[in-house]
C-alpha cells in the first residue's frame, strides 16, 4: 500500500511514462498532494485524521504542527544521514522527531492555549505519526537535503489538505459552523455524531470511497481513450 503510484491519468506531475523524465524536484513536491497522498493513498497518519478533525480550527492547527515536525525532521535527518551509523538509525531519527514535537508543543501552548488544550494528548502523539518516521525511512534517510525537504513539504501539504477536508465536513455537519461561524442559523439541528469518533470513521470511509470511485473512473476513461487511439491508429495504417 505504501507509495502506490497510480498510472491513471492524473493532473500534476507524473502522467503516463513518456520518453522524457518529469523533473525530479517538481515530482518530489507534488506527489504528496494527490498521487502519494499520505492519508488517502498511503493510509498513514489516520490517528490524528480521525481524532482531531471535529473542527476546522483544530484540524488546521494539527496540520500545521505536523507539517512543521515533518519538514524539520526530514531536513535534519537528511543532513546527518551519512553520519549516523545504521545501528542507531531509528533511535537518532526518533530523538530528532521527538525534539521537534516538543518544540511544537511549547510553541502551541504559548500561542494558541485554547486549541492546544482541545488537541490534548494528540500533539505529543505526533511523534508516533507514521507519516513522519515513514518519510525519514523511505526518503530523507537516503536522499539529499533539497529533495528531502521538498518531499516533506509535499507530504505535509497533502496531510493538511486531508485534515481540512475532514474537518470541514465534520464541523459543518456536526456543529453547523465553519471556524466557529454559524452557517445555518439557530434552527439547524446539528448531526452531533459527526463530531464524535464514529463520525470520524464515517467521514474517512466516504472520502476513501469517493477517491476509489474517482480513480476507477479515470482508469476506465484512460483505458477507453487508449482503445480509441489504437483503433484510430489501426484504421489509419
Amino acid at each position, binding site marked *: 500500500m505504501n507509495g502506490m503510484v497510480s498510472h491513471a491519468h492524473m493532473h500534476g506531475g507524473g502522467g503516463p511514462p513518456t520518453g522524457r523524465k518529469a523533473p525530479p524536484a517538481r515530482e518530489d513536491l507534488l506527489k504528496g498532494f494527490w498521487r502519494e497522498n499520505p492519508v488517502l493513498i498511503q493510509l498513514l497518519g489516520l490517528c490524528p485524521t480521525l481524532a482531531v478533525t471535529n473542527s476546522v480550527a483544530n484540524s488546521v492547527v494539527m496540520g500545521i504542527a505536523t507539517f512543521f515536525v515533518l519538514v524539520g525532521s526530514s531536513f535534519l535527518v537528511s543532513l546527518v544521514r551519512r553520519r549516523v*551509523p545504521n545501528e*542507531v538509525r531509528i533511535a537518532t531519527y526518533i530523538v530528532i522527531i521527538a525534539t521537534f514535537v*516538543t518544540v511544537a508543543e*511549547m510553541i502551541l501552548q504559548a500561542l494558541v*492555549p485554547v486549541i492546544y488544550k482541545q488537541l490534548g*494528548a494528540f500533539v505529543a502523539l505526533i511523534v508516533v505519526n507514521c507519516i513522519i518516521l515513514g518519510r525519514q525511512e523511505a526518503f530523507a534517510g537516503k536522499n539529499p537535503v533539497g529533495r528531502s525537504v521538498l518531499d516533506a513539504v509535499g507530504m505535509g501539504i497533502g496531510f493538511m489538505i486531508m485534515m481540512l477536508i475532514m474537518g470541514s465536513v465534520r464541523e459543518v455537519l456536526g456543529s453547523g459552523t465553519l471556524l466557529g461561524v454559524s452557517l445555518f442559523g439557530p434552527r439547524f439541528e446539528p448531526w452531533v455524531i459527526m463530531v464524535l469518533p464514529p463520525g470520524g470513521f464515517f467521514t474517512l470511509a466516504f472520502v476513501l470511497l469517493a477517491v476509489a470511485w474517482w480513480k476507477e473512473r479515470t482508469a476506465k476513461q484512460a483505458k477507453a481513450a487508449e482503445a480509441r487511439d489504437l483503433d484510430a491508429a489501426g484504421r489509419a495504417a
Partner: protein
Amino acid sequence: MTAGDGPAPGAAVPAAPPAPPAVKTSTLLTTLGVGGAIAGLLLVVVYGLTLPAIEANKQKDLEAAIKEVLRGAERYETLYVVKGALVANAPEGADPKKLERVYLGYRTGSERVGFAFVAAEPGFQDLVGLIFGYDAAKKQLLGMKVLETKETPGLGDKIEKDPNFVGQFRGAATPLVGVKRGKRSKPGEIDMITGATISSRAVIRIINNTLKRLGPAVEAYAAEGKG
C-alpha cells in the same frame, strides 16, 4: 555472509565477500550523545523563549478558574502557606512563586465567599491538577474545576468534561466519600464515573488530602478574620 556451497569436490570455493567494517561502539555512543546534546540545547532554548507566554496564559486560566469555583467572588486575595499557617504576605526573602498559595475570594466589599485551593496528585495516567472552592464556615465545597489532566480521552477526562460529575462538588459536605454510581445517599457522597474509578478517586483524594492538610490553617485564618 559466505555463499553456501554444496559439496563439489575439486570446485574452487569462491572467496567470501569482505565483511563490512564493524562500527565502533565509541562511534555509536558519540552519535547518540551529540544528537542528544543538540536536542537538549534546542529544547532548553525554546523552553526559555516560550515560558513567559505560557506562564501568562496559566495565570489567566487560574484567575478565571478561581472566579468559577468561588461563585459570586468579585476579587480575590492571595494567601501564602508558611509553616502550616496562612499569611497575607510572603515572608521576606522567600520567593512567592515557590510558596503554596490559597486564594480568598470576596464579594463586593469585604464579605468573604470562600477559599480556593489548587492541588495536584497522580491520577490514572499522570498528575491531575484541580482547583476547588471551600466554605470554611459551612465546611462545604463551593465547586471544583479540573485544570490539568492527561487522563484517557472519553473516559477519565470525564472528570473534567462531564457536567454531572463536576456539578456534584458544589455544596458537597466534606470529607468526601466516593460511591458507586447511583448509590449516593448522604451529603458528601460523590458518584464516581463508571469506567474511570481511578480518575474519580484521584479527584476525591486530592480534595480530602488538601483539606486535611490545610484545614486547620484555614479555620484559624477564618476565625481570625471574623474577630
